[in-house]
């Protein structure tokens, strides 16, 4: 079984409603402790889905199970079914390397490689053999940096270490690195929590632009951020998915009491 059977171009009229990823009865265990209980969630293609909820509610755990980053944690176990374009990503025949190339990730803390800015972006395409020539690579690196809104700030110092950039720049570099492998889904785990409001605004704008080409799932602690950037919101509490729906509905007219309490600041 291969992931390549997925329809490549998303040009059909139904592109805004087609589920890109689907979770069915997803349970995650860390050793004996269960962190997620029977989560059913659909991630719509070319939309931003935000996962909100108090600390320890399992939203990051769910995010990390979407590209199997949980595999790297000893004693972590996932049951249920998570599919990408209707292919079960936990199927034994699936190679995580291919999965992660298609489902990229941006982390909470900016974590550029201690290498040059150019090398940070070029590493992914190189190991996946996405481009053939040096010129194509240059082209790809430049376009990724441009799309991440970093080009004007770094174009004269592509050979300087990525770790020398400011926090906000580093995070945009990480986004450029993530989109350089041309993923279909981009997972973002609190990408702005280490940034100041100005850098946050830049990243949020960027997320909105990236929605054109990628399906984005973002974990955030900031309800304003969820309201600003996402079209769909899912509220997690104590490892359970309490409510999900269109962002406007969740924030203006929550059906569940817990959701209401959380977005109005009474719990969490």
């Amino acid at each position, binding site marked *: 079984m291969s992931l390549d059977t997925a329809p490549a171009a998303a040009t059909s009229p139904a592109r805004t409603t087609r589920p890109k990823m689907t979770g069915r009865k997803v349970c995650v265990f860390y050793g004996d402790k269960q962190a997620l209980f029977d989560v059913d969630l659909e991630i719509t293609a070319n939309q931003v889905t935000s996962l909100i909820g108090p600390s320890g509610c399992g939203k990051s755990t769910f995010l990390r199970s979407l*590209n199997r*980053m949980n595999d*790297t944690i*000893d004693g972590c176990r996932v049951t249920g079914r998570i599919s990408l374009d209707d292919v079960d990503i936990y199927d034994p025949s699936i190679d995580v*390397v*291919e*999965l*992660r*190339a298609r489902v*990229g*990730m*941006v*982390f909470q*803390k900016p*974590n*550029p*490689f*201690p290498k040059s800015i150019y090398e940070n972006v070029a*590493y*992914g395409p190189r*190991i*996946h053999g996405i481009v053939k020539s040096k010129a194509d690579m240059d082209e790809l690196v430049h376009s990724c940096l441009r799309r991440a809104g970093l080009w004007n700030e770094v174009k004269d110092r592509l050979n300087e*270490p990525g*770790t020398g950039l400011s926090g906000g720049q580093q995070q945009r570099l*990480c986004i450029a*690195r*993530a989109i*350089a*492998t041309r993923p279909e889904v981009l997972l973002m785990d609190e990408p702005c929590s280490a940034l100041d409001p100005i850098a946050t605004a830049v990243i949020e704008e960027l997320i909105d632009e990236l929605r054109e080409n990628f399906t984005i799932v973002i974990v955030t602690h900031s309800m304003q951020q969820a309201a600003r950037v996402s079209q769909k919101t899912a509220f997690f509490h104590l490892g359970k998915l309490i409510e999900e729906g269109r962002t406007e509905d969740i924030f203006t007219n929550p059906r569940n009491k817990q959701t209401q309490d959380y977005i109005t600041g009474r719990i969490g």
Partner: protein
Amino acid sequence: MTDAAMDAPAATPVPAPRRDFGLKRRHRAEAIFRFFGVAAITIGLVFLVILLWSVVSKGYTAFVQTSITVPVEFTAEIIDRNGERATNPRVLVSANYPVIARNAVARALGVDPDDKAAMREVGKFVSDGNRAILREIVTKDPSVIGTTRPVTLLASADIDSANKGQIDLGVPEKNRKVSDQQLRWLDQLKDQGAISTPFNWGLLTFGASSRPETSGLGVALMGSAYMMLIVLCIALPVGVAASIYLEEFAKKNRFTDFIEVNINNLAAVPSIVFGLLGLAVFINFFGLPRSAPIVGGLVLSLMTLPTIIIATRAALRSVPPSIRSAALGIGASRMQMVFDHVLPLATPGILTGTIIGLARALGETAPLLLIGMVAFVADSPSSPFDPATALPVQIYMWTNEAERAFVERTSGAVIVLLVFLALMNLLAIVLRRRFERRW
């Protein structure tokens, strides 16, 4: 203050009584701790200075050697009495060269060649090691036979000591190693300008010898170099590979815990036990030659492995997990994550650990004694399978020699060993500075 005013509006403000935070006691405790810290460092430094002073003050003279430059007559009657060197070149090898050296010095001193007693004294004045020097000149160019040319000869060890002022002249002559006559000759040669004290290259090139002036560290240096090379080639790749596997690939379970405990225990095993292991396994079971650097290198590799593994694992662990997540997150395989990102960041730590391990191996003596590297080896080993000694073992052997000239050589050898250790540690620091990166 406002609270107090509200509670008792009528009373004049009373300053709050000073609370006892135990500051005096805390400051005293800190002062005592600081004192002990400074005292400990001072004591350490004093001992270090004493050690270095005693070694250097005894050993620095070993780096020069008293030599006598006199015209030497390559007498045909002595070298080749029967004139058969054209047919039998071996006569040139076995000729009585010490007599030629003795005669040359005797002529320079004006000693009557028929004065048997005086000639015997002159014979003790020059080193027997001149045999090799003169033999080399003659075998290289047999046409020198019958001619006279200036040659720099080695003084004997006792004359060398006397020249360096290490013989107590207050002792009665018959209890001294050097006679008054020899001392007069020494002064006479000095006046002629024949005595010189050039740098003692022999200390670094000669092999083992029973005469101090012709014994050196050559074989020991070669042996140690071979062993370090073997340790580097075996312990570094095996140790790094083992650590990477344990740290990055192996599942954490009872079995890996068990291995970890054993590696830590192995690091604490006395080195002589490794020597016994080498004797039993490499020499008795695999039949490798005794006294050979190959066996020493293998034993020291085993001994260094735990050190390198522990250092490498610590270095790998100090690489932030975020780098691993970053690599895995864009679809790098575990192998690519390790070799493209984790290993480069861990390199300074690995190199430091390796060099510290090598330095420890370089100074190791006990296991080498057990595998027979404590041997009288005069010829430089041409491969790791030839007999050799090692630097610390050579120091150990020279300590057992009685002659005064060996005392300074022992200290000289210690200086050589310390210089190598210092250089290795310096290299470790330089490499760490060089490869250190921030993240």
